[in-house]
């Protein structure tokens, strides 16, 4: 934890424990030996459990890309991708990944990103994703399996939608068994699903903790670190154990009344993908105003695990994987996203909404202007919109963003 207030060190058993373990998990992940076939998946709504059960090592290029951006290393890869013709407006994740893996051999200061043996495009709602995986299939000459996930049209997915997805998942497993001479083991899948569920329960509980006043956690800036296990390692023992530890740390913070800032003054809900190239600076802009994010949509980009019903389930393996795939954040209807923001503002006793839009992803950002209007005009909460990019530091204009953030909190404080 970044800013623990004055509490005697000896009273705190878990201070910083979750962040320390998260760092170790990241290090171990990128330094692991490649002993199995490698599959690339997307974060949102992926069938990682099936691939793990089949014996694959799972990688997500989005996570590698954002890790590069937060370490201020994304631009060199973006420029490499642009040098072979990728345009300025193409998604920063795509360009960072292609610049890093295909054009630079996957060597990073954290370890080597292995080449894929298989590509599964588990979310086709973003057409850029589909094209990205097609490009990788062409570069690496490896099989590409593309799933067609129905849009989240109803709060509760329809039976036909689930059957449609389950049919594709079964077909995918059969194809992979043949392609890689592997045998699918349902018992192994159930073990993996049990670990997923345990991690999801723990992660879901950590969201609820932010209802405390003061909040023991910054549910955006801090939770972004804690997303790594649920997204990169979901279905493993390590991920399940991580969230146990996180909750122990949060319980301890609540017990001592400590939070990410010394005197919580503003409670915000944050929507949107973070500006990873300016992540620390952006966080500091909020800390300066004693503003804490108490709920955020982005940490649920892999799955809406704040909804207790959305869990992987060893008792319903196919159905729970299919249901999860629909609840990828980008696949959610705007009705659902609006209701989610409303619920967060009310349930977490928030003062305002902050939206961070990203230039190179219209899939995530389209509609955020309407969301701002809805929150201001219909719900009566103040809302701030700022924009940069999740990967490309050329869009990070610090003075301009600082000005907007300062003016926003200044106005909130003056109204009090």
């Amino acid at each position, binding site marked *: 934890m970044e800013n623990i207030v004055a509490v005697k060190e000896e009273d705190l058993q878990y201070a910083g424990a979750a962040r320390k373990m998260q760092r170790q998990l990241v290090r171990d992940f990128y330094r692991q030996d490649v002993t199995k076939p490698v599959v690339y998946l997307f974060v949102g709504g992926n069938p990682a459990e099936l691939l793990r059960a089949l014996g694959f090592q799972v990688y997500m290029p989005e996570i590698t890309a954002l890790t590069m951006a937060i370490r201020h290393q994304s631009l060199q890869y973006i420029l490499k991708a642009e040098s072979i013709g990728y345009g300025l407006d193409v998604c920063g994740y795509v360009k960072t990944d292609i610049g890093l893996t295909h054009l630079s051999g996957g060597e990073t200061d954290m370890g080597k990103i292995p080449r894929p043996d298989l590509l599964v495009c588990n979310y086709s709602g973003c057409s850029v994703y589909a094209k990205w995986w097609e490009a990788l299939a062409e570069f690496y000459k490896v099989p590409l399996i593309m799933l067609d996930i129905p849009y989240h049209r109803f709060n509760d997915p329809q039976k036909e939608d689930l059957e449609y997805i389950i049919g594709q998942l079964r077909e995918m497993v059969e194809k992979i068994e043949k392609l890689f001479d592997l045998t699918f083991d349902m018992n192994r899948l159930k073990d993996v699903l049990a670990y997923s569920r345990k991690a999801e329960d723990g992660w879901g509980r950590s969201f609820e903790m932010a209802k405390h006043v003061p909040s023991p956690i910054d549910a955006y800036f801090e939770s972004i670190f804690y997303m790594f296990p649920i997204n990169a390692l979901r279905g493993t023992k390590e991920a399940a154990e991580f969230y146990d530890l996180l909750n122990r740390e949060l319980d301890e913070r609540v017990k001592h009344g400590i939070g990410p800032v010394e005197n919580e003054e503003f409670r915000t809900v944050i929507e949107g993908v973070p500006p990873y190239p300016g992540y620390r600076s952006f966080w500091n802009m909020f800390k300066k105003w004693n503003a804490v994010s108490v709920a955020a949509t982005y940490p649920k980009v892999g799955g809406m695990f704040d909804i207790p019903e959305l869990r992987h389930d060893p008792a319903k393996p196919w159905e729970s994987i299919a249901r999860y795939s629909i609840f990828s954040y980008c696949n959610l209807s705007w009705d659902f996203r609006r209701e989610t923001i409303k619920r967060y503002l009310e349930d977490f006793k928030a003062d305002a909404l902050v939206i961070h839009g990203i230039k190179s992803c219209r899939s995530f950002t389209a509609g955020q202007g309407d969301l701002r209007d809805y929150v*201001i005009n219909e719900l009566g909460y103040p809302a701030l919109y700022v924009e940069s990019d999740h990967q490309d530091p050329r869009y990070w204009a610090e003075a301009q963003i600082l000005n907007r953030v300062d*003016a926003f909190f200044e106005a909130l404080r003056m109204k009090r």
Partner: protein
Amino acid sequence: MQEKYVAGVDVGSTTAKAIILDMDRNIVGKSLQNVSPKVAEDAETAFLKACQDAGIDREKVVLITGTGYGRLKVRFGQLIVTEISCHAKGAQFIFPKTRLTLDIGGQDTKAIRLGENGEIIDFSMNDKCSAGTGRFLDVCADALGFSVSDLGPISEKSRRPVKITSTCTVFAETEVSNQLARGRKPEDIVNGLHYSIAERSISLMRRVGIVDEITFTGGVSRNTGMVRALEDKLGRKINVSPLSQWFGAIGAALFALEELEKGSDPKFMPMEVKQ
């Protein structure tokens, strides 16, 4: 009673403005200074010039607020407030019925919606580029061989304003050259530029809601052609003052005065008390 004053210093991207107020809220001194890379020095020069204009020693100024992009460079000041709050406050001080402020400065445009008591209800700013701002007009004026202060009078001669779709500052020169090459008259190009910026600014104003009264502030508000284009597109009159460029500094000085009235002791006031 000892003679006391407060000051507001607005350090923008192209100019620094300073205002001196007496305790009765009268403007007794002002200055305008171009900004160089030595921003801190320019800020102080602007402040000293305003003191000189007021005919007072700097020691008489007991509280100073810094605002604008260079607000952190007002190191001789005690308060820091963003120019969004300051422009709004300054506009409402001069035009008390102001409910919407449009500020077009050197590198950004802001629409600020205000409540009856001066509280900021909402604000919206241009995208992170200087398209359609004062800098864009500067570059266009250069390309046409005019001074920026000529743009208003020149545009009055226009009969058929040219439709300009790109207000990108980087491509401003090529846009102007292209229009000249097509035989367009300079006055029609200038007028077209004003209408193009007006449309862009009105779109920003719509995001926060267009309500009367509207006050136009910032350096570009001195351009009569710009005022005319905005009034034409909005279909209503807007407030403009010869002091519009100083509204940020006026607001800053008013914040300083209010702090004094609250009984704060400037000696112990942290620089970022507002933040």
